[in-house]
């Protein structure tokens, strides 16, 4: 074990001498408080260490001891529903043991060592297994069946394996490998900076349904895809992220609060256990893992939190689940990189960010994907990554936004001016994009409606037309437009207010199933078509825009999912009746008024 002495301290950076034998990225214990740190540079005898805890009170000459192992996470039953800090220390447990503020130098195991789990063996003694093969399972929560897999790099013959009640460190069986016998436990470890292997990566083919109308209809994300949500403060990034964490149809969500507000996590902790997952009927918390390194917690651990989160997500992906990683916010992570880079006196790139910012970001997002998992049964798993970006001043020409945009396939650009008028989610429908749209077309037409794609393009077209017409209106006034163009404006307004806008805090509006999304959009477009035909017959646009049925359309989004079919059919009848009435009275007046 390598042991050195501190020679330099500057904020979270400590330099120690006598570290020649240490490995890069080894975890070390620093000083008499035993702070946790990681070696990030070695120059001859001197190692630069980033320390994950506050370094005040540390002095020159204090000891630095290497643990000889890289920063790793513990993977096993007990992860789900837990809340961890950036280096996987359990925050609830720490509160019970050490009080409501985070004390330094405490070491609490990530997984509860006392708790017993009921393990069901599925492999008989004598069978051949390879890395990643499922040995058995533990029902971790009502929703998550935690599969216990052969640790990576450790195939062989199972000599014994027993069902029963075990703690995470108890021996559940023995594996005979080429290099001798290996004891099997419920828990395994994995270094966070290394992506967990898989057999094959495949192009994404299935959408991650979020229940958010603007996302699913206009800018869908695929399972195994990547997306970013950039926006200035106050534009509702966090609400969008929370909505995705709540309603996405994935098996597990890993939510990383990276350098953000403490109260946001408290909100999640208070709210998620209360919400029922529409798919499983169980509480949402039972499929959620929280990683939380708030802005006031040490900056180096913020850098690690992203990796901790995605490694946990990969582990569940390997079980054959679809997992979503939601990181809020990657800009704070980049700032942590910048701070460490500055202390290391590296040559800065753009705006002081290190030159390796882009490569680190792409390494993170490339860990997402739809894959054939490691193991002999070729099960499929997917890992989707969604990152919030907080560009300074809302200007996305800055380095973090630009580097992110080059990697991710879906861009949900939040717009401050929409947020000011409380149009939420404030996703700008003109500048946002999704590169998965074509690929997912088939799924939508098979599983929702064969007109889905056509309808979604029609919505985009109307919104585009509206922005062009708006320019004209601003110059010459609304009277200069033809009745058909005025109708376009009316329908586009209805799409914006009655469809795209969605209230995250309303019980019925927070989540809209796909079939209802299709029906609601159909209703609005149907009104448009019907009205266009009426205008051709000479009906005044003003009269159409004042029809009482429009208020009904406006309230249609709040109809709950089990009642929408009848309610929407009724509104459609009402549209027919009211517009037909106008046409008839119009024909009557034409005759009187030649």
């Amino acid at each position, binding site marked *: 074990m390598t042991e050195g002495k501190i020679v330099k301290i500057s904020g979270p950076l400590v330099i120690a001498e006598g570290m020649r034998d240490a490995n890069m990225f080894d975890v070390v214990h620093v000083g008499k408080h035993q702070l946790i740190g990681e070696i990030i540079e070695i120059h001859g005898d001197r190692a630069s260490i980033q320390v994950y805890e506050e370094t005040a*009170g540390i002095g020159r000459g204090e000891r630095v001891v290497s643990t000889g192992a890289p920063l790793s996470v513990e993977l096993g039953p007990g992860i789900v529903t837990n809340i961890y800090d950036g280096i996987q220390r359990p925050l609830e447990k720490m509160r019970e043991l050490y009080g409501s503020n985070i004390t*330094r130098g405490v070491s609490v195991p990530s997984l509860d060592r006392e708790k017993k789990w009921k393990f069901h063996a599925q492999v008989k003694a004598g069978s051949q297994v390879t890395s990643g093969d499922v040995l058995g399972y533990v029902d971790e929560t009502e929703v998550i069946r935690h599969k216990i897999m052969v640790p990576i790099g450790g195939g062989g013959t199972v000599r014994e394996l027993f069902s029963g009640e075990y703690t995470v460190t108890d021996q559940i069986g023995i594996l005979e490998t080429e290099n001798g016998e290996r004891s099997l436990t419920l828990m395994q470890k994995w270094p966070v900076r290394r992506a967990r292997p898989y057999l094959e990566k495949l192009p994404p083919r299935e959408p991650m349904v979020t229940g958010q109308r603007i996302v699913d209809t206009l800018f869908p994300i695929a399972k195994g895809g990547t997306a970013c949500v950039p926006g200035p403060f106050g534009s509702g990034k966090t609400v969008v992220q929370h909505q995705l964490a709540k309603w996405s149809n994935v098996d597990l969500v890993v939510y990383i609060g990276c350098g953000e507000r403490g109260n946001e996590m408290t909100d999640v902790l208070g709210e998620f256990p209360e919400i029922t997952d529409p798919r499983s009927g169980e509480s949402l918390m039972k499929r959620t893992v929280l990683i939380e390194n708030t802005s006031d917690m040490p900056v180096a651990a913020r850098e690690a939190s992203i990796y901790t989160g995605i490694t946990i997500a990969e582990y569940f992906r390997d079980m054959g689940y679809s997992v979503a990683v939601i990181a809020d916010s990657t800009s704070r992570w980049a700032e942590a990189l910048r701070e460490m880079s500055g202390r290391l006196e590296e040559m800065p790139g753009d705006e002081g960010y290190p030159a390796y910012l882009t490569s680190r970001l792409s390494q993170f997002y490339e860990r997402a994907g739809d894959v054939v998992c490691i193991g002999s049964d070729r099960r499929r798993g997917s890992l989707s990554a969604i990152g919030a970006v907080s560009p300074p001043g809302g200007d996305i020409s800055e380095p973090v936004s630009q580097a992110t945009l080059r990697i991710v396939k879906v861009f949900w650009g939040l717009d401050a001016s929409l947020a000011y008028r409380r149009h939420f989610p404030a996703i700008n429908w003109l500048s946002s994009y999704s590169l998965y749209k074509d690929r997912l077309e088939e799924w939508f037409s098979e599983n929702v409606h064969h007109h889905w794609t056509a309808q979604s393009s029609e919505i985009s077209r109307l919104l585009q037309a509206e922005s062009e017409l708006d320019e004209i209106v601003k110059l010459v006034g609304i009277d200069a437009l033809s009745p058909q163009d005025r109708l376009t404006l009316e329908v586009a307004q209805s799409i914006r207010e009655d469809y795209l806008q969605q209230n995250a805090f309303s019980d019925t509006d927070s989540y809209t199933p796909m079939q209802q999304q299709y029906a609601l959009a159909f209703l609005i477009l149907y009104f448009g078509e019907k009205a266009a035909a009426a205008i051709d017959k000479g009906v005044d646009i003003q009269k159409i825009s004042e029809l009482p049925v429009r208020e009904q359309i406006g309230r249609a989004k709040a109809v709950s999912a089990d009642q929408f079919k009848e309610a929407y059919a009724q509104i459609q009848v009402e549209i027919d009746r009211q517009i037909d009435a106008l046409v008839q009275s119009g024909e009557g007046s034409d005759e009187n008024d030649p």
Partner: protein
Amino acid sequence: MIREYKTIEEIAGPLMLVKKVDGVKYDELGEIELPNGEVRRCRVLEINGSNVLVQLFENAAGINLATSKVRFLGHGVQLPVSRDMLGRVFSGMGEPIDGGPKILPEATPDVNGTPMNPAARRYPSEFIQTGISTIDGLNTLVRGQKLPIFSGSGLPHANLAAQITRQAKVRTGGVTDDSKFAVVFAAVGITFEEADFFISDLKKTGAMDRTVLFINLASDPAIERITAPRMALTAAEYLAYTCDMHVLVIITDITNYAEALREVSAARKEVPGRRGYPGYLYTDLATMYERAGRKMGSEGSITMIPILTMPEDDKTHPIPDLTGYITEGQIILSREMYRKGYLPPVDVLPSLSRLKDKGIGAGKTREDHADTMNQLFFSYARGKDAKELMVVLGEAALTPVERLYAKFSDAFEKQYINQGFYEDRTIEETLDLGWSLLRILPRSEMKRIKPQLLDK
């Protein structure tokens, strides 16, 4: 044993390099003794071998390389705290400056505090009635929130902050709960007149004996500005979590704080982030702002209203920008409203309170609060659009409904926003005023209000 060093090697700006030092700790507090016996304070910024880089809290005039002595005190910057601090005035370094006796400390915590465990936070949800319609009705403040005021030079942010201090109360079930309320005020680099305005306003309303003041005036050492807000927060934490009080912390002006930080960073020749501010400005501000909140095991709370002046009224300047990313919303003051003579000149549309949704509604304010709030925001935004169009094209170009919206937005500004600094409206008055203004618009436009509520 405390050792003295006479090995000062360099002094440049607020930084000083001391050589051949042993046994000193990172972030430790030090004292410099001048030949004439005067003592100044400093703090360890970096240890490199036996060289120690320290930051001075006062100016360097008179420090001499040959004869000045440095000693390190074995602890970080601390503040002696006690319940007796209420009613007292302190300097930015925590020394009493009101001529009164020293505080007999009940505890001496480190001013940097320790981060709160996110799992130990309690979510803020108790409505604070400030008596100001634009805040109560539209951007509701709750206990434990951090809600900054973004102002500009020459705007009356001080009056608004004083009005909140004067009128703020928590009402549970219609009854005012006035128990154990305290104010901690930190003046960071503001002028004497501005500080005096606050103090005399607090005295007038009799609130002075439940207030702790930390004063660093524009003429005081700039570097002290880095510690002043932390002193205030340390006192607030003691009052809130040890004495179970509800503490309102007002810090003005954060812009001066950030500039002091930039001064030190520039002197250290660090790689700057945007506009010369250090790359760690976000983290640094967060370690202050995140000290607001409520935590398990304690009745008390810290509600924070930091005030900052936006350079050139630019919201995208790093100071307001980073603040907005950390705090739970912002109240923005508008020069345009101020020119119109509407007080307090709150710019309603970009202002925001993120925690309002959990603090309003039946049982807290009133069941119609959320819907009317959304409708008011939406209608005011539409009214402003209509008025913009009217300027370009004339009133005739507007549809009848748009004309109503324009009328609504005028009435809204005149009656709802413009209430003056001395009117105290209850939440019911604010909500009723909202309804009476919405009557200008036809019922079919009330898309954001549930029909059941409209019927009432």
